[in-house]
């Protein structure tokens, strides 16, 4: 498996190029405008990979996405959760869908909470094991933290409902083996996490099970209360960035 994290430290954003070294097929997850669509095409070419899918783990509100530009240059549609309210044509993904890259595959879990359209991708390399080796958790589960529930819809009831969804999604991710690596969409100072978001860009399910304070809360009400109590101010221009990423004219 070829697995290349592509980071933008200025906003604490992570994107990923994941491919099958044998068959040469790859997918890109959460491409960043700050890095530029071309950097993904050139990285893939350098690795001998052909990008066959561009996936967003959710419609972002904190940074500009390069997903549509990249997909256009490749002549394909962006893949998004079927729940994404995007204004452009996209390839809708559902829970359990598998993106098959040959010996490498990405299975999709819907993990709503941060946004209703949040998904996680379970990455397996079948030359090693059928078991997922890594999970790209988007803004569902972070290193030391979980994604904030207030950016898609900031009304009080919606935020509470989103926080309860986030609780369920985090608990679901905890069904994975301890050895599964976690690669989220953010780290460091990103505004999408809370106070405990670590500067380290990856972790494991086992480490988060032991040491992530939100994972350890077993009562959904307490989870919701703590999550809301620890919210940072929303990222600057969040609504405008989100509508641009949704393809709605600003």
């Amino acid at each position: 498996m070829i697995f290349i994290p592509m980071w933008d430290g200025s906003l604490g954003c992570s994107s990923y190029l994941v491919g099958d070294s044998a068959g040469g097929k790859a997918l890109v997850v959460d491409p960043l405008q700050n890095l530029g669509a071309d950097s993904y095409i050139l990285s893939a070419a350098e690795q001998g990979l052909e990008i066959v899918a561009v996936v967003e783990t959710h419609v972002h509100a904190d940074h500009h996405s390069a997903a549509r530009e990249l997909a256009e240059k490749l002549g394909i549609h962006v893949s998004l959760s079927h729940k994404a309210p995007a204004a452009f044509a996209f390839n809708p993904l559902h829970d359990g869908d598998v993106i098959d890259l040959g010996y490498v595959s990405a299975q999709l879990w819907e993990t709503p909470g941060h946004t209703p359209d949040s998904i996680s991708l379970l990455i397996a390399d079948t030359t090693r094991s059928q078991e997922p080796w890594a999970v790209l958790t988007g803004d569902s589960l972070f290193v030391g933290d979980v994604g904030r529930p207030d950016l898609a819809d900031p009304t009080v009831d919606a935020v509470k409902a989103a926080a309860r969804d986030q609780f369920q999604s985090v608990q679901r991710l905890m069904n994975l083996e301890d050895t599964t690596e976690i690669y989220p969409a953010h780290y460091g100072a990103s505004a999408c996490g809370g106070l405990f978001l670590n500067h380290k860009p990856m972790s494991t399910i086992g480490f988060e099970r032991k040491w992530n304070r939100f994972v350890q809360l077993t009562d959904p009400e307490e989870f919701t209360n703590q999550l809301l109590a620890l919210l940072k101010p929303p990222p600057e221009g969040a609504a405008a960035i989100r509508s641009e990423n949704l393809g709605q004219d600003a």
Partner: protein
Amino acid sequence: MTAQEFLQTVQNGQSVFLDLRAPHAYSQSHPAGAYNFPFHRQNWGGAVKQALQGQTPPIGIFVDNSVVAAAAQESLVAAGLTVAFAFDKGLKAWQAENLPVEQVKDLTVDELRQNLDQYVVIDVREPYELRSGIIPGAVAIPMGQLQNRLNELDKSKAYAIVCASGNRSASVSSFMSQQGFDVSNVVGGMSLWIGSRHPVERP
């Protein structure tokens, strides 16, 4: 310059034609007369210049993506080379224009395992790499020696070429195919053969 005109200059030995795609794509099928020189961002043009050993023929590039084509042209020009021809629409478009291609067959490790008796397997890895095990019955000929040892091979037999990952074997396969041998490239190489728990012999 049209593709036909450029190919004529390649045939006459005046120009060099480079296929920038990955080895596995090249090995399946590529424009006739093109060498495989996969693109990378670390002074790729300089690497081409080095491979040309002091000569500066006009260069043609073939790839399936305009972003890579633009970066490659820039890199060649920066290295002081001349780009005479560029095709960035990939193999289907090339074939749609009735332009000539050369092909090599691909073989998965599972297919090879099932039909092992139908192939002569050539392992083109270096001697030190063979310690991880070789496919039972395989003949070891390091890539660098193959050109001089073609007389040991038989054009009536079917050859399966294997290396560590499938890259070197792709180059060897297309070379042997051009020499008129019946060859298949083992995709994924020994890492996939061993990873799939197929049997190996220890030399």
